[in-house]
């Protein structure tokens, strides 16, 4: 059991107002973690802080035994941290293929990996993307954008994938596909996953460990086996 | 009010020193001080628009020039018998046959003085209204005002027969019948300038303390936010820009009186942007900073540029870069407690063993 990502007393702030306090986390390679809590408690900020697009104002982030606290966002992406932001954030004026190609940027400077094209498994996971490869991403439906955002993150062959509400605002049928794809990403690609998810039933069946956030802090964590989703939901007032 | 408010005391001392300056410093220094104080009136206008409203104008020279030319035109006509066909010297040299129509009203001193304030003020207000109503701001507005400065100065140069061209308007000796070349007159002009600076200072202080000032800062903080609270931000900005234009005009007229010349070289692209650096150095959000910055930069320029002309341009360039990069709140920002810059500066200063101001 090796630790892939370790957060120690991580803090972050928007200007004057602090949004994260002393967050500690320990993420084991190959595991899946659900990060839950009400809207606005800092879950997205925490993911962004790990990714490096939100400033770290205190504490330490270690990824694969390397201190990445001072590393830039692209540096962390290249080290193997993949990110699917909330609201997808696909590049609206780029085509699907171009969006996926941007994901390849994370491979820059990594040894032994091919940069030549989008790996087959991405199209295998999301067959829809092949059909719409030439369309502008801004014109896609929410579900299609979400699959694209996932595919784009996977193009960089991450060892850790951070997902911010991947099923939010998506048709149930597509949610099923995404769920299925995420399970395959875990089992077939061996990617460690941290997922922020309001859809607790899924989060619970997917992750083995959970962290609960409140007001910018981790207030509780444990194994999903030990407690039911409903208990936790009641507790954190989701 | 506290008994020994340091701000109040230093204010009183500065006003007394300013009023007594003619007896304290040499005549040459007095003429420089008068000139630079005239410029500081314009600088306070930049503080109002740039610091308080977030509007950067690179064309304040235009309004400065409009004020300066309005007064200079009157000065050129003084003592001439226009009805008799007399014309300013440069028109005679360029072979103009009759005084152009728009020069005629400038025979009146009152009209000219009204023009000094109103022409730049209204022009600035009208021009900025056209921009702000279409939500042109920030970098776009700065670039357009720069184009304005360029157009204005080239127009002045090219219309030699109407404006005196490259040399501008110079060589005048009386105003309202008084000789303005004597040292006595210099003193009076200095006092007039000083009084206007003081009036402008307190007027702006009052204005910025009013609810208008709050609205102006609100538009700077979030123009759209202000809109979504039901206010139209445009008039606040237009008024600020108009006032800044009028102040620039007044400064231009007084400067013309002090230096005895107004020319395109004082109003074009380069001088216009130089005006911004005075305020950048002094402190864009603090009224006295604008005055202090103007005096400081101009005295430095006077000292350096006469001895090493090319050094000055390097110095000015470096001043721009350094002031903006490392002292965003200017010198005055260092004195303002609680400001972020002050905190940063405090940290930097505290690393040094030197004893610093305050």
């Amino acid at each position, binding site marked *: 059991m090796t630790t892939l990502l370790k957060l120690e007393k991580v803090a972050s702030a928007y200007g004057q107002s602090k949004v994260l306090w002393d967050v500690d986390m320990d993420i084991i390679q190959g595991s899946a973690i659900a990060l839950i809590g009400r809207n606005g408690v800092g879950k997205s900020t925490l993911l962004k802080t790990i990714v490096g697009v939100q400033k770290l104002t205190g504490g330490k982030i270690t990824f694969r035994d390397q201190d990445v606290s001072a590393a830039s966002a692209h540096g962390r992406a290249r080290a193997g941290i993949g990110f699917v932001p909330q609201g997808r954030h696909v590049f609206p004026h780029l085509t699907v293929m171009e969006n996926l190609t*941007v994901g390849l940027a994370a491979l820059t400077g990594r040894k032994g990996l091919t940069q030549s094209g989008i790996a087959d498994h991405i199209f295998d996971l999301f067959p829809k993307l092949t059909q719409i490869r030439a369309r502008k991403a801004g014109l896609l439906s929410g579900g299609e954008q979400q699959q694209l955002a996932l595919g784009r993150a996977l193009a960089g062959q991450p060892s850790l994938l951070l997902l911010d509400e991947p099923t939010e605002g998506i048709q149930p049928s597509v949610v099923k596909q995404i769920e299925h794809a995420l399970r395959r990403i875990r089992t077939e690609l061996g990617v460690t996953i941290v997922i922020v998810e309001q859809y607790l039933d899924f989060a619970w069946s997917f992750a083995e460990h959970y962290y609960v956030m409140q007001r910018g802090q981790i207030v509780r964590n444990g194994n999903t086996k030990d407690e039911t989703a409903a208990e936790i939901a009641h507790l954190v007032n989701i | 009010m506290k008994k020994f408010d340091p701000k109040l005391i230093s204010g009183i001392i500065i006003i007394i020193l300013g009023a007594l300056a003619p007896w304290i410093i040499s005549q040459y220094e007095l003429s420089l001080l008068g000139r630079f104080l005239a410029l500081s009136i314009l600088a306070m206008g930049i503080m109002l628009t740039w610091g308080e409203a977030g509007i950067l104008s690179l064309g304040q020279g235009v309004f400065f020039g409009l004020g300066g030319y309005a007064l200079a035109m009157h000065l050129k006509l003084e003592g001439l018998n226009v009805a008799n066909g007399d014309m300013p010297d440069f028109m005679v040299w360029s072979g103009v046959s009759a005084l152009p129509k728009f020069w005629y009203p400038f025979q009146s001193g009152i009209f000219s003085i009204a023009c000094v304030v109103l022409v730049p003020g209204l022009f600035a207000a009208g021009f900025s209204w056209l921009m702000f109503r279409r939500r042109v701001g920030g970098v776009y507005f700065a670039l357009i005002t720069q184009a304005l400065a360029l157009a204005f100065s080239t127009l002045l140069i090219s219309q030699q027969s109407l404006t005196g061209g490259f040399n501008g308007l110079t060589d005048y000796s009386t105003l309202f019948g008084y000789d303005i070349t004597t040292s006595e007159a210099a003193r009076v002009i200095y006092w007039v300038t000083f009084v206007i600076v003081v009036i402008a200072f307190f007027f702006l202080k009052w204005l910025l303390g009013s609810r208008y000032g709050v609205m102006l800062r609100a538009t700077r903080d979030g123009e759209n936010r202000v809109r979504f609270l039901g206010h139209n931000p445009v008039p606040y900005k237009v008024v600020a820009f108009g006032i800044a234009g009028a102040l620039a005009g007044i400064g231009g007229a007084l400067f013309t009186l002090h230096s005895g010349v107004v020319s395109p070289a004082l109003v074009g692209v380069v001088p216009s942007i130089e005006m911004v650096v005075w305020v950048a150095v002094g402190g864009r959000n603090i009224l006295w900073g604008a005055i202090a910055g103007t005096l400081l930069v101009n005295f430095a320029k006077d000292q350096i540029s006469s001895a090493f002309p090319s050094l000055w341009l390097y110095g000015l360039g470096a001043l*721009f870069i350094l002031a903006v990069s490392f002292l965003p709140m200017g010198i005055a920002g260092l004195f303002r407690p609680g400001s972020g810059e002050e905190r940063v500066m405090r940290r930097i200063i505290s690393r040094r063993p030197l004893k610093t101001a305050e």
Partner: protein
Amino acid sequence: MGESAFLVGQIFNGFSVASLFVLAALGLALSFGLMRVINMAHGEMLMLGGYLAYMTLQVVPGPLGIIVAMPVAFLGAALIGALLEWSVIHRLSARPLDTLLATWGVSLVLQQAARNLFGAIGVEVTAPSWLNHVVQLHTGPLEGLTLPDTRLFILVVAGIVLAGIALILNKTRLGLYVRAVNQDRSTAAAMGVNARLIDLMVFSLGTGVAGLAGVILALLGPVTPTVGQSYIVPAFLVVILGGLGSLVGTTIASLIVGLFTALIEIFVDVSVAQVLLLVFVIVFIQFRPQGVITVRTRALEG
């Protein structure tokens, strides 16, 4: 010379002026789109290109000197641009107005340096003999129309540069990253794109193109320390008219400004033309404040 020939000549003239504006404004527009900053020292990149052309011709005289000068000027200006971006602009990235002022300071320093190095009067670059011809029509409705080779040369260079940049932006990985950063900087960074490096490259590409434009300026007149200043203000107006960092917008806006200037100068002198150009821009803004090209995008939530 017939009236129509004169008009066509003037239009042609407008196109060649527009080509210069395109080259001068392209870098400004690209980095403005990407970083929302305007480099006031951009005019000095033109100047730098001019002096580099002059120096190259000292080393490589003869008909091919000018061909050698172009890559030299491009690289020289790009290098200085990279230095400027790295040292000043990057530091002020979130403060566009302050960047404006700081780069103006840089512009003053560069002008003064040129004055100290080359003198205030300026240096001459003689166009090679193969550019000394004029294309002249002796018959037909456009009889008397003369098109100087140098002006044709400008058109060709501008066309090649535009095509090259369009190719880079649309067909290369670098261009893809540029567009990605342009649309969503932090997401692009999270995908592994080094947005800082992209800024730097785009900025120096833009200053390089300005350096190239400087070589052409040198063919048209003497290179003086302030030569960039006379082109930079119209270039700023092009950026304003063109809309945010769009290649097509910049090109169209350059054509508008170039043709407007050339045609209005038939009727009025240069200084009045300058005033009228400004009036035109102000009027234009009243109708299309966002510039010639606008994209209506869905505001991304969250």
